[in-house]
Structure formats: structure tokens, C-alpha cells
């Protein structure tokens, strides 16, 4: 038991070490950086890898692969509207302590087949598990409805995605997954995790980061707006005023 706990601990530390040493993941990514430039309109990440093993393929349940990509997390407030005095207004609210801005799960088969509930709880793989909500305020009995709403809204906006056919596994050795990043993307480190499972149990894990950054003009404007906000504000005004003057002058010429 202790050895196993230690192994998980080591896996978390080293990020590369397997839970059990029999089957390991060798991984490739089509890009380790996503650059957000002016014409950015979403991106596709292709994750491909192979299973390295010293022994022949074990008997028993077939190998399955689960891939998750998770954007930076932020606390959010989910509010619910209710009809009061004839109009719809926000009444109850629940704070969700940690909700990733983007979360995609791709699996090689139906979720209940490739991952047991216990393992899901331990590694926080499925979308509801990736969200952490502790303690709804007193008087709200159906706090689950709020986290469900959060998932529903973000799924609709392509920010959360569960694709149960997103990973193809070949000969129990090669696998390939594609994850679609939407156009509305927040900068940050996108944590990418790959799990190998057999019979619902995780047998190997691999973690890597995808760096999502604004570049060029986007980067410069963003930094300016945060670091020298007064200059940025004056620049916005100067552009507005000169554009207004230019249009006026141009039309003056046309009319003449």
C-alpha cells in the first residue's frame, strides 16, 4: 500500500513517471506552443503517442487512452434568475472555487468503460470532477444544479468538451487524439494529461504543458493596457479623435 501511495506521489512530482512500470507513454505533440496573433481563429492540437513496454501485451481488458487538456482555472459565480414582481432577476448564487476556462476530455471509448468512478475521483478526469465547488451557501438545496448549469453553458460555448471517440488506439500500442481549441481562448499554461487505462484502472500517466500566449501586436497592446493604462487610454482617445477628424476632412474634400 505504502509503495503504491509513494508511486502516485512520485508520478505527480516527476510528471513523467508511470504509476506502474510495465507500460509507459512516449508522447509527441504537433505544437507545444499556441500563438494568439491578430488572425487567430482557434487551433487544433494533435496528440500522438506510443505505449512502450518491456513485456508482451498483457492479457485481460484492452488498453484504453484518456486525454485531458485544461486551461487556467478561475473562481466563478453562477447565478440563477427567478421571477420576482413580474420580472426575471438574479436571486440565488453559488461560488465555484475552481473552474478551468477550457477543459476537453477525449477518450478511446465510452467514459464508463474506460474509467472507473474511483479512478475518476482520484485523478479528477471527467468534466464534473475537474470543477471544484465546496460549500453552497445556506438555503440552497440544489447546488448541483448550479455546477450542471456551468458545464452546460461552457459546453455550449465550446469551452468544455467530452469526446468519447476522440482517441484512436491502434494495436494497443499507438494512439492519436485531436483536441479543438476555440477562438475565444484565454492565455496561460494548458495542462495536458494522458492516461492509459485497463479495465477502468489507470496504469500509466503522462503530463505536459502547452503554452498559450498572445504574440506580436496582441501581446504589445495587452501589456500596454495593463502596465501603462493611462498611456493606453490616451492612445485609444487619440486614435478615436484622429479617426473622427480624418473622416470629417475626407468628406469635406469629397463635397468640395
Amino acid at each position, binding site marked *: 500500500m505504502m509503495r503504491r501511495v509513494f508511486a502516485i506521489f512520485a508520478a505527480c512530482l516527476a510528471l513523467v513517471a508511470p504509476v506502474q512500470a510495465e507500460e509507459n507513454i512516449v508522447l509527441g505533440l504537433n505544437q507545444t506552443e499556441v500563438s494568439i496573433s491578430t488572425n487567430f481563429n482557434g487551433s487544433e492540437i494533435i496528440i500522438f503517442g506510443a505505449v512502450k513496454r518491456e513485456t508482451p501485451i498483457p492479457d485481460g481488458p484492452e488498453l484504453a487512452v484518456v486525454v485531458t487538456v485544461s486551461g487556467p482555472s478561475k473562481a*466563478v459565480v453562477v447565478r440563477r434568475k427567478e421571477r420576482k414582481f413580474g420580472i426575471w432577476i438574479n436571486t440565488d448564487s453559488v461560488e465555484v472555487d475552481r473552474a478551468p476556462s477550457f477543459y476537453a476530455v477525449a477518450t478511446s471509448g465510452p467514459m464508463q468503460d474506460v474509467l472507473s468512478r474511483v479512478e475518476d475521483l482520484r485523478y479528477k478526469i471527467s468534466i464534473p470532477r475537474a470543477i471544484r465547488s465546496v460549500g453552497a451557501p445556506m438555503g440552497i438545496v440544489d447546488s448541483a444544479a448550479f455546477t450542471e448549469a456551468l458545464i452546460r453553458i461552457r459546453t455550449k460555448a465550446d469551452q468544455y468538451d467530452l469526446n468519447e471517440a476522440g482517441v484512436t488506439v491502434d494495436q494497443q500500442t499507438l494512439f492519436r487524439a485531436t483536441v479543438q481549441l476555440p477562438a475565444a481562448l484565454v492565455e496561460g499554461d494548458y495542462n495536458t494529461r494522458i492516461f492509459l487505462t485497463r479495465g477502468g484502472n489507470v496504469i500509466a500517466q503522462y503530463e505536459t504543458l502547452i503554452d498559450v500566449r498572445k504574440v506580436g501586436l496582441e501581446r504589445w497592446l495587452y501589456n500596454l493596457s495593463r502596465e501603462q493604462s493611462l498611456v493606453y487610454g490616451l492612445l*485609444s482617445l487619440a486614435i478615436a479623435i484622429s479617426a473622427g477628424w480624418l473622416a470629417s476632412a475626407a468628406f469635406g474634400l469629397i463635397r468640395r
Partner: protein
Amino acid sequence: MQIYLPIAEISVNAFLLLGLGGIVGVLSGMFGVGGGFLITPLLFFIGIPPAVAVATGANQIVASSFSALLAHLKRKTVDLRMGTVLLIGGLIGAAGGVSIFNYLKSLGQVDLLVNLCYVIFLGIIGALMFIESLNALYKTRSGKRQPRKKHTWIQKLPFKMRFRVTGLYISVIPPLLVGAFVGLLAAIMGVGGGFIMVPAMIYLLGMPTKVVVGTSLFQILFVTAFTTLLHATTNYTVDIVLAILLLVGGVVGAQFGTTLGTKLKAEQLRILLALLVLIVCGKLALDLLLQPSELYSIGFSS
């Protein structure tokens, strides 16, 4: 053509934004309204985060109102003296409005109150203007001229000042109060306030419609510039790329708008503006009254 907005952090169609700016620009030049009450809800609709929409909308109004103001200055339809008096009131009102806004924000119901403000003010002003201008239109058709009320309580107030362009000799207290009230609402509702200012100048101060538009633009320009700076330095929500796309459409539209405006009769202008205000009001009222398809919403905790 998709373009990624650095502050709003989403990708939108550039031509859609150009068109949106253009439409609002035409209205701005025609009626002397900044168009904030139109552009802000429209930006929400295409998925721009509300905070960015409000701040960037203000910046866009600076451009379109400046362009339209230049056109009006050439035509000498701006009362700079009246504009300055209104502006002094406006800045005081805006400062007060910002503190009220922050107080409401701490109570957590700011969205509802902003929406209610929109519905109430747009509704009252739109209805009043519509009825009044219908009457005026009917009277000019039947050959009678509407008599201007000369002796009201406004005439009896002290600190009188002569406004030559407007042709008025009145106390500075009513314009100051009108300016302050508009500034207050502008800060709470995140708009320039032209749609309140224009009728207030016509009906409360008795200014001629031709001068009202230019003078209102003058006041709007400074109030929205002030708001833009305030948003840029405190909330970091002004998106310069979004603003440029909107204002390129906006400034061109504003020039067409002023030309269109001079071709229409004052009463027709007022009736069109009233209809526009009522349409926006109706849309916002429906949003409050009908059950929304999604009862839940996501906000960021402070």
C-alpha cells in the same frame, strides 16, 4: 475575416464590427445621439464581455461624435457656451454616477438596475417624443405654427446668461442641472446620454432642434472621453482593436448621417429617433419580462 481581440479575448468577424460601427455612426450623425444605447447591447449580442463592451463603446462614441461635431461646427449649429455649461454639470454628475454605480455593484444587482434604467428612461422619453412630434407634424401640415412657451418658471431663476447661437437668455441653473442629471445616468448606464440630452434640451430648455444636435454632441464627446479614460485606468476593459474596427465604420457613418439629417425636417427627425428609442426599450423590456432560455449565468467573483 476573423480577428482576435486582445482585451476581450475572443475572435470575431471584422466586417460585422465595421458594419455595426457604420449603422451606429449614421444614427449618431442624424440625431446627435452617441449611439451608446444601441452599440452596447449590440456588442453584448455578438458575444463581447459586457465590461469590455461598455468601455469600448464609450471610446467608439468619442470618434463618431467628434466626426459629427466637426460637421456641425462648419455649419455653425453648435452653441459652445451652452455646451460648456452642460459639460460642467455633466462631469459633476458623472463623478456622482460612478460612485452610485460602485455602490450598486457591491449590492450585486447592478445588471438589473442598469436594465431597469434603460427600460424606464427609454420608455418615457421615447413615448413623450413620439406623441409630441406627431402633434407637431400634424400642426405644421395644417399650416399652424407651434407657439413657443416664453414665460415659464425657468425664466424666473437667477444667474441669467445670454446664449447667442441658441437665441436664449436664461438662467444657467437649468442647463447645469440637465447636464448633471445626464452625466449621472450616463455613468450608471454606460452611455453618452444623448438620447436623454436631446429631448431635455428641446423640451426643458426650449432650444431649437437644429442647434440641439451639435451642442449635445459637444457634451457627449467630453463625457465619453472622460469615461473611456476612467475605464482604461481602473478596469483595463478598453479594447483598442475592437474600438478601431467600430470607429472606422462609425466615423464614415456619422458623415452620411449628418448629411441625411439636414435633408429631413426637424419633426421627422424627432419621430424617427422616438421610434428607435421605443424599439430598443421594447427589446430590453421583453428580456426582463419573458422567461430566459437559460436561467443561469456565469460571472467572475471579485
